[in-house]
């Protein structure tokens, strides 16, 4: 992990980059020895691209978070890893639920190569949280059925929100929708 000073230097370097700009990195966070950069959602591709040039060439994980009741609610985290220095840094961004659209980092683009490993993971975040990834090659549900409605990992999605058919109530079942 970069230490607190290293993280500030990294943030400074990102902010001074043309494609990212001074308002591209919103905040730095050093917590329990783990470094995180909070970035503007529309700058995610240049940020990851610049960090790749700095040695963070392996995208270990992408995961979604729902920050209910805080706004903007939905978060997407990218865990980057520098294998030669054994150094990790997390890049985090937040988007609101009424316009949850960010650029996909999966495909190659004019701003540099993509991260093919993000393919399934972005699909999972779309499935579970409803974040839409602009430019993703195949943005479909991955774990839930294709005709499923709603995004079950959101915090306001109830547990057990779906009726279950048992033998004792199968005759009372209204229609046979499911």
């Amino acid at each position, binding site marked *: 992990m970069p230490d607190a000073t290293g993280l500030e230097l990294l943030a400074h370097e990102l902010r001074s980059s043309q494609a990212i700009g001074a308002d591209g990195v919103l905040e730095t966070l050093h*917590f329990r020895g*783990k470094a995180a950069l909070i970035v503007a959602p529309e700058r995610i591709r240049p940020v990851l691209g610049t960090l790749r040039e700095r040695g963070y060439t392996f995208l*270990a*994980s992408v995961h979604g978070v729902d920050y209910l009741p805080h706004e903007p609610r939905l978060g997407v985290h990218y865990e980057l890893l520098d294998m030669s220095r054994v150094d990790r840094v*997390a890049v985090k961004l937040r988007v609101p639920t009424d316009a949850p659209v960010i650029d996909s980092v999966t495909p190659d683009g004019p701003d540099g190569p993509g991260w093919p490993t*993000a393919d399934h993971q972005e699909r999972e975040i779309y499935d579970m949280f409803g974040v839409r990834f602009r430019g993703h090659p195949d943005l479909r549900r991955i*774990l839930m059925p294709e005709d499923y409605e709603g995004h079950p990992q959101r915090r306001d999605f109830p547990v057990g929100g779906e009726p279950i058919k048992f033998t004792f109530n199968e005759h009372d079942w209204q229609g046979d929708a499911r």
Partner: protein
Amino acid sequence: MNATGVSEYRRREESITLSAMGKPHPDGSHDELLTLNFGPHHPATHGVLRLLVNLQGEVVRSIKPIIGYVHTGIEKTAEDKAYWKVIPVVERMDYASYYFNATAYCCAVETLAEVEVPKRAQYLRVIHLELNRIASHLLWLGTSALDLGAISMFWYCFREREQILDLFEMSSGQRMHTRYIQVGGVIEDIPRGFEEKVRAFTSVMPGRADQYNALLHSNEIVLARLRGTCAVDADTLLSLGVTGPLLRAAGNPWDLRKADPYSSYEDFQFKIPVGTVGDNYDRFAVRVAEMYESVKIIEQAIEGLPEGPHITTDRKVALPPRHELATSMEALIHHFKLVTEGFRVPPGEVYFPIESPRGELGCFVRSDGSSKPARVHMRDPSFVNLQALSAMAEGSYIADLIATLAMLDPILGGIDR
């Protein structure tokens, strides 16, 4: 055997010419693509994986995996439970490596709550993790050999796996999903006689692994189906996020136990087996070689097992010992608070990766300050590694697809969660 030392089988095999391949058939049928639905209920998919395979003749042109058949919403369930009650549900994700799931989760929570894990507990974790790694590799070896037609391997592998499950039963009372790893340590110290039983196992296991090698490494059919098939280089694997034995088979010695040691792995001497070209044979050989290394780690951990508590003495996160409940009011209060509400964890977010039998198993935990996690996410290696299947098997024969899927070692419980 003839005079040149080449077996009759090999000579005949090499005499077959493939020059007619790739040439169009007179009626044009050669170029026709056949879409084959493979799974979800098929013994070679190692679970409920469904693949849509486009075939040109017998050659695989594209693969589309369809998953989610055993999605049970474990991450959602975890948000509804106190921190220590999440352990049994996350164990059920990757059902072949339950100790790893629990360790990744507990280490993440320990980092959040700043809990110190006693040295003895770390060693006990290592012993069980490595036993679990061998059990997981044995399950893989048995079922993969079955896919290649070597049926007897299955019985031999399950014989040793049974020994490991007996050890788990001895230390925790359960054979699978043991709930042995706790936040702050392990649930109980090992019982009397456990060390001898582990030593008996570690003395017998290398010999058994030699036998597996003898059965498979001199089996011409197995070698023909594994050698040189579906090789992928390390750079492609890295861009696809592949870790673990699959990456090491391609020659990249990345192993979190060495690179970024957790749970006292820095105390042990062991080697990281690597392959050279990253074909199916290397994937097979790396995993078999890892079993020997795991045995070495277990032997060292049993030998150097330090004295001391098996779980943290911080009463805020770990249950007090039973005898204290009869005499100490404070212990009773702690016990009551832990059982009813659980412990509270300071707000924050932590991603904790460990090396599972299939690669980097990372657990992301977000705490909002309450006694239940606000988000638990497992970066399961099977889920990420599955993306490499297309890169591996496209352009090869459908029979090699079966072998590649076996060598990929996906666990569908971990993929779907």
